[in-house]
């Protein structure tokens, strides 16, 4: 056991401590109600005793665990409570899981992003579970008049072996809830885990399969109206005027007006990113009626001059103009030939390149991507003179709260943000512009409203994965040995460069440079931001290098990692070479890498990002000239796995996402207009393109858990590209690969 100091904020226990003579009853209004994690029906106790912000226990021993973080399909609503349940030591079948509202006084970090939910909740949730358990033990010790150290627990039961006394947690919940919070608590040994590391099914699965209202778009209250916005059809345009003479007379329409979502005085943070700030708004009774009026609304647009705003206390700008993919490409090509901003230099790379017997240079590109979460952007808001309530999909309520408060002129504690289950997110919902829009619309309409984006609205409203380009150069001596390595990476509007990642640290002469081109096309985090491109480029280049040097691609990577492990170059290498090599070795074994099958083409790739290591081997076949990934073997090191089956599900999903975006994903622009606006033209991977098998293996260790939502995504791109090379004899440099294949 590990003894940990209980540094959970005192505030999280405040409510329990304030009680005298009885438990705390907590009420919930969300209509779906409680979800039994195990059996269909648990008897819901009339009274709950709150142990802390995460745990309440009923007299009958039923336990409610709160999932603090927003759920968007990463299964955090199951895995985080599993951590609590483990340390609390209860029977999972007696657990009900509830989604917590956004409540910064009670929860440390209610953010879904960066694959950090489990990693950052690990310690606090273990402590919360162990603390509640300890308070139950102490309550029983007082009542039984025995030393607390003699009391053990077993899945919701307190036991005193010497006297034979035993009781369920429910019996002591009231007394325990009133105890002071212990200063320190003991955590379980990893080897004693029963729940963490097992597979528990999604606590929401039944509700999903029965079509229960779970999502923001499903939300409804009395008197709620539907609102839709009309945003400019192109980046670089803004609202000028509108003619609503026809639209406002249409059936079901209540009002038509404009809003400024963000005003100039607001100091934005990065998650306030928004493509447009002035919208035409249609409010009416039902979605279909509002949609018809929206189509009938005639809006005039005008060129937007350079937009200046404040971000983090500093002036920021969006340039003016209507941008096109063709121009972007030409500009990026130009920049790859110019010197960039050097962010790392080891040895003397310039000299090494000068003295090289041979240089290999390759440039990789990737287009803008739309996130395309299945549930379109939406949000419920009810804003009155003195308070605001919002309910909807958001990954990052904490970032939008300050902006909402500024924009509405309401103190933060008068704003309640409730967290809906999200129909996907992929980074898109870290940006809360829809919460602001909904709130401002509700305030203006003086009614509870639900803002609904159509698919077209969402796909053309920005916050995309940026477009990128990276040029790699390798210098060889006359013996074909690697002398130097150079990466120059940039993008619109940001550089994807991670200068201190592999193979930095493994090559004596190393140079990393970055550049960027400003744009008014808005971008944001997209599943494994930057890594999703850098992995594709770097791991394709390493594959080509291995081939040039006549080495097996896994052996070649392992050689470099061995160098980085035993004799690293440079001060700062952002990876653990041994763990990196570990996943490559595991994937080599599990994929039976050396075995070949007629007609099956294999590609490998490995990457470290978001604190986890993933290696993948893709098996690809060509059917009538069309590539099809048949199978992927993945090896993952994310430390302790919380919910094994869910982790496998998510890794599989990330890999399918990787195959889809590598082969098909792109959002081109012409004169500021996104050239795709729905799934008719934006190609997403479908059932017939999905592999037959994804075989996921985890490195077994006792390291604290790290992220899973993002790390399996980036390596897939290059594994596909490298397999395509085997299949066609050609290298693939420009995503989406299907275009490059067609252009041959």
């Amino acid at each position, binding site marked *: 056991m590990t003894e940990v100091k209980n540094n959970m904020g005192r505030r999280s226990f405040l409510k329990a401590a304030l009680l005298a003579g009885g438990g705390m009853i907590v009420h919930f209004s969300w209509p779906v109600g409680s979800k039994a994690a195990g059996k269909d029906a648990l008897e819901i106790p009339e009274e709950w005793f709150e142990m802390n912000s995460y745990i309440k226990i009923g007299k009958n021993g039923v336990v409610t665990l709160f999932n603090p973080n927003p759920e968007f399909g990463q299964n955090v609503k199951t895995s985080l409570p599993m951590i609590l349940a483990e340390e609390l030591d209860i029977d999972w079948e007696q657990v009900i899981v509830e989604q917590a509202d956004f409540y910064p006084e009670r929860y440390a970090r209610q953010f879904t992003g960066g694959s950090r939910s489990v990693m950052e909740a690990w310690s606090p949730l273990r402590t919360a579970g162990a603390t509640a358990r300890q308070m139950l033990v102490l309550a029983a010790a007082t009542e039984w008049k025995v030393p607390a150290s003699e009391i053990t627990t077993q899945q919701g039961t307190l036991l005193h072996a010497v006297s034979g006394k035993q009781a369920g947690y429910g019996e002591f919940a009231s007394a325990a809830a009133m105890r002071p919070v212990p200063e320190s608590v003991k955590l379980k040994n990893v080897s004693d885990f029963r729940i963490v590391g097992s597979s528990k099914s999604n606590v929401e699965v039944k509700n999903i*399969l029965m079509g229960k209202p779970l999502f923001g778009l499903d939300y409804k209250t009395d008197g709620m109206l539907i609102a839709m916005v009309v945003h400019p059809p192109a980046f670089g345009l803004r609202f000028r005027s509108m003619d609503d003479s026809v639209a406002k007379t249409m059936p079901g329409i209540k009002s038509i007006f404009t809003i400024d979502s963000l005003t100039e005085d607001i100091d934005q943070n990065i998650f306030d990113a928004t493509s447009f700030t002035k919208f035409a708004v249609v409010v009416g009774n*039902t*979605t*279909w009626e509002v949609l018809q009026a929206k189509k009938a609304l005639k809006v005039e647009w005008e060129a937007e001059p350079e937009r200046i705003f404040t971000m983090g206390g500093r002036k920021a700008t969006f340039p003016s103009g209507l941008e096109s993919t063709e121009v972007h490409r030409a500009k990026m090509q130009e920049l790859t030939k110019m010197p960039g901003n050097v962010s790392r230099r080891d040895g003397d790379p310039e000299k090494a390149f000068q003295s090289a017997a041979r240089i290999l240079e390759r440039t990789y590109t990737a287009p803008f991507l739309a996130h395309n979460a*299945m549930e379109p952007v939406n949000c419920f808001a009810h804003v009155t003179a003195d308070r605001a309530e919002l309910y909807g999909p958001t990954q990052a309520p904490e970032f939008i709260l300050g902006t909402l408060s500024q924009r509405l002129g309401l103190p933060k504690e008068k704003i309640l943000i409730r967290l809906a289950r999200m*129909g996907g997110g992929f980074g898109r919902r870290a940006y809360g512009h829809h919460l602001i829009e909904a709130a401002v619309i509700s305030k203006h309409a003086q009614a509870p409203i639900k803002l609904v984006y159509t698919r077209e609205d969402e796909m053309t409203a920005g916050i995309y994965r940026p477009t990128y380009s990276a040029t790699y150069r390798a210098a060889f001596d006359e013996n074909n040995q690697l002398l130097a390595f150079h990466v120059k990476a940039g993008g619109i509007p940001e550089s994807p460069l991670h200068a201190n990642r592999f193979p930095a640290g493994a090559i004596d002469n190393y140079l990393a440079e970055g550049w960027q081109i400003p744009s008014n096309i808005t971008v944001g985090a997209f599943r494994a931001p930057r890594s999703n491109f850098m992995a594709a480029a770097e791991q394709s280049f390493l594959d080509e290098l291995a081939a040039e040097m006549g080495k097996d691609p896994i052996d070649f990577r392992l050689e470099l990692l061995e160098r980085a492990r035993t004799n690293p170059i440079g001060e700062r290498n952002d990876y653990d070479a041994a763990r990196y090599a570990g996943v490559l070795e595991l994937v080599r074994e599990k994929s039976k890498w050396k075995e070949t099958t007629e007609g099956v083409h294999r590609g490998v790739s490995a990457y470290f990002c978001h604190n986890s290591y993933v290696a993948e081997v893709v098996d690809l076949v060509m059917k009538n000239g069309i590539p099809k990934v048949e199978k992927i073997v993945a090896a993952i090191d994310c430390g302790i796995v919380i919910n094994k089956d869910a982790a496998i599900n998510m890794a*599989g999903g990330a890999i399918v996402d990787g195959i889809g975006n590598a082969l098909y994903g792109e959002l081109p622009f012409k004169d500021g207009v996104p050239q795709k606006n729905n799934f008719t033209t934006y190609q997403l991977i479908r059932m017939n393109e999905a592999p037959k098998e994804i075989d996921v293996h985890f490195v077994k260790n006792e390291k604290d858990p790290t992220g899973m939502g993002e790390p399996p995504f980036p390596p897939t791109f290059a594994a596909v590209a490298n397999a395509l090379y085997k299949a066609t004899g050609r290298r693939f440099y420009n995503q989406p690969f299907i275009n490059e294949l067609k252009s041959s």
Partner: protein
Amino acid sequence: MATTNLKINGKEYSVDVDPSTPLLWVLRDHLNLVGTKYGCGVAACGACVVHLEGEAVRSCVTKINRAAGKEVVTIEGLSEHGDHPLQKAWEQVDVPQCGYCQSGQIMSAAVLLREIPNPTDEDIDLAMTGNICRCGTYLRIREAIHLAAEIQTKLK
């Protein structure tokens, strides 16, 4: 506006809407049957699949007058207790990630299983290609359809 009589999940409803309103929005906005999802509105994603006289249709492009007087089944009516072979299989395989696409997936799969009680992977690919899962749960969907076929066979 016009009154349209509907029979949904065995229950009679009468709604007063423009006859060109898609069934999807009548279900979601008027009848509070929100298990049927909106994903694209243009018959491209399958999130809104329901059964009309036993056939899988995309309710986002099915005008309400086409459904008048006909039998409509939505995910809420597929079974009373969530124990249709497909729902059982989905639960056992633990298919969903975000879950948003899953009711549409199940409704498409239900028609497939009726037409082909023991579908091959190829049959599944063909029948399910109209349903996008952005989370990429396709492999589990395939597995669950095979499992549902087994469960269904045993029930017979």
